[in-house]
């Protein structure tokens, strides 16, 4: 029972961390970034590079964030900016970007599955249940991501401007907010978060050039049902992620893999606002 609850909470934490970058990009840029999977992969391979160089495993996270931000800056400038007015085309172009990132990684690192070192190893006892320390650490990491985004949105000038752009972009522009700048910075942060999430999840399994795709689909679904709100995303990650854990444990892991996709699609049919208000 304790293990099940911990599985649900850690799964939700992972899903939250993975989806948060997609969420803030959708919120500010109104664009679904299908290169999100590619950015996750970049994060995973940043961890691999750190491992191969024999550096401290903790360095994987800052390395991933930097790699993501740099990639995000390039992509925003050359691909995203021309597509601001064509959101459906942006989905396709970012999907193409995901393919490019995947192929570049394949050319550089090869297509085989590789492993990265974990900064925290071993297990600990929680209420008499032995549980992986690293998965518990992910709860902290997700909380830190959430806290970081919330602080950025609520306590900085950029956050204020971003919130203004989310609510009413033409009005924000009219008030002298440089929405192009806000979009650029947001995209970079979103890409950095995606890459960080990639580095966070790889110690649980392994890295391969297409590791981002399954995560992308789940993150996309979670973001759509949370209508651009961090709190709703947390609720969505907990309920749908919880459902996934339950189905995987009690019915079948194969069907478990579909839980988020199917439930999210049905939820949006019944209640287009998802977990959000309205």
């Amino acid at each position, binding site marked *: 029972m304790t293990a099940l609850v911990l599985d649900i909470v850690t799964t939700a934490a992972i899903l939250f961390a993975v989806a948060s970058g997609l969420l803030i990009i959708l919120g500010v840029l109104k664009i*679904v970034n299908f290169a999100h999977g590619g950015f996750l992969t970049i994060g995973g391979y940043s961890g691999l590079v750190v491992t191969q160089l024999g550096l401290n495993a903790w360095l994987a996270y800052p390395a991933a964030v930097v790699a993501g931000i740099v990639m995000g800056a390039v992509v925003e400038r*050359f*691909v995203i900016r*021309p*597509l601001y007015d*064509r*959101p*459906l*085309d942006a*989905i*396709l*172009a970012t*999907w*193409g*970007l995901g*393919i*490019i990132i995947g*192929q*570049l990684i*394949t*050319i550089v690192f090869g*297509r085989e599955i590789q492993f990265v070192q974990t900064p925290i190893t071993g297990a600990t006892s929680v209420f008499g249940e032995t549980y992986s320390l690293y998965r518990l650490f992910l709860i902290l990491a997700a909380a830190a991501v959430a806290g970081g985004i919330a602080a950025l949105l609520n306590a900085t000038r950029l956050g204020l401007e971003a919130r203004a752009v989310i609510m009413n972009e033409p009005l924000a522009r009219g008030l002298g907010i440089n929405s192009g700048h806000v979009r650029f910075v947001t995209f970079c942060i979103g890409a950095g978060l995606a890459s960080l999430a990639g580095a966070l999840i790889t110690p649980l399994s392994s890295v391969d050039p297409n590791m981002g*795709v399954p995560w992308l*689909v789940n993150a*996309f*679904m979670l973001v*759509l049902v949370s209508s651009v709100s961090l709190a709703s995303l947390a609720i969505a990650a907990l309920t749908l992620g919880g459902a996934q854990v339950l189905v995987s444990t009690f019915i*079948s892991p*194969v*069907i478990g*893999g*579909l839980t988020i*996709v*199917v439930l*999210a*699609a*049905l939820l*949006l*049919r019944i209640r*287009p606002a998802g977990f959000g208000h309205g």
Partner: protein
Amino acid sequence: MADLTTTPATLPRRAFSGRLVPAGSIAGLCIVAVVAGPYFLDSYTVNILVRSFLYAATALTVDILWGYAGILTFGQAAFFGIGAYAAGITFTYMDFSPQTAVLALLAGLAVSAVVAWITGWISFFHRASPLYVAIVTLALPIILVQVLYSGGTFTGSSSGLVGYNTFDLSVEAWFTICGIGLVVLTTAAWFFVNSDFGRLLIAIRENEQRCTYLGINAPRVKILLMVVMAMIASVAGYAYAGYTVVVAPEIGSFVFGTELVMWVALGGRGTLIGPVLGTIAIDVISAYLSGNLPYVWKLIIGSIFVLVIVALPQGIVPVLKTGLRRLWSAATRRDAAPCVAVPALIEAPEGRRAGTGSDAPALNVADLACSYGSLKVLEGVAFKALGSELLGIIGPNGAGKTTLMRCLSDGYERTGGTVAVFGHAIARTPPQGVVGLGIGRSFQTTSLFETLTVAESLRLARYRLDGTRMLSHAPTLALPDSARRVITATGLDRQLAIECRHLSHGMKRALELAMVLALEPSVLLLDEPTAGLTKPERTLIGSILVDLVQREGLCTLIIEHDLDFVREISTRIIVLHQGKVLLDGSVAEVVGSELVRTIYAGGAHQELAP
């Protein structure tokens, strides 16, 4: 009214057969090419091209759904996979025979149709977001692949099914069959998208909401289209399984679904020929290059794709086409632009108005309320309107006039109360259903279909009553007398071939009105029909309206800001103020009312003024 049929009825037919000849000859040439192909091409290329033809047929269905109807779909791969697995499973477990071949084909078609219908039913509903269908069709191949994985040995799990008995045909025979199939399909698709029904699809893509207010059941049209396209993709998958003797989960996967969309985008969405040629070219080059440079080739394709989406959103073929057309006009000094066929206007049969002969009031509104959260826009609105009444609705900005129109024409809008048309409650009926009850609504802001011509727009409004042709253009356009009067009086009858975006503002307003009248409504809801018009235009429309109400007994509600205009034409006036009915009475009563003058002149605040 004989002078209305100024265009000879033979002209459109001539224009149509004028398109028939080049289309037929191009198709003929292509068929010659696919019959002769095996004699000129090496066997490896022939081998690859069969597969490319089948992919191209599937890409064609993506183009019709996405390029024409605006439905971004990743799901066609799933239907291709269903068709392929129907063949693979049947031939593996029941062996191959003519009977099982037919059985497998029918099974694939049936399963695809059912799955597509369910997908469509989930995706298309009143007020669905255009992104939602992309989500559902994204989920579809993911689900299919998981189902195939969990099928264990029955579906062959991740390695699929291989080596079953299949059609005893040579590669050359497959080439000819699939090639001819592709040519026939593309030609049929060309006639389909250029028909009146094709225009309907474009109208739904451009402005679905407006379509529903013209009584067009857009969700149903899209579901039907999706079912037919799924069945075509399933046949392509069936042929693929028969030809390659391999079925694996990849052919029904999400990645294949996105590849189809990429091929369509590269070739040129909404062009039919672009996706077909694009798919064939990319698939053949892939086959040659992927052996030598597997990753680099995918990298190149990905990069070109991103470049095309960013810089050439229309795709490659339209760019080539424009270039060729310029060359052609420069060489022949002739304008290569296609001539647009104009249908002849004829009189629509009378007596199809809803509610004729009913004793109930045309419109009975009781206790109507509409609120957004805590904001109450309408509250306790109640009135009745009869035939032959022209009811003016006035009130200051924000009084809830347009919201009232919305609540009367869409059963999902109001939050309380009832609306009945000739005794039929509109309940929770979407706009297309409300149109069927007899309500026709025009919009405050001109809401037309930019790229459709005047004649095509009017035909859209007739779709509910007259249906439409799937593969051709109807030579005539039947309109009720009232709509034709608006058209002739404003000179729109000489502009039938003009695209709506080129019309003047006055013409657009007139067309908007003519489209609503073409619906043959019994209750007409007009939201500022004369906004932005000149005095003579306004008088003209006013006199047409008065005449309509008197001669045809139409019940008309009209929102206007111009009190003088309302006074001239109305038989009764309702004053709305802050979401409530403030006054409901004859023109004299309302115009003479001190209360109305106070609201309009802001008299309540006069004592505050210095």
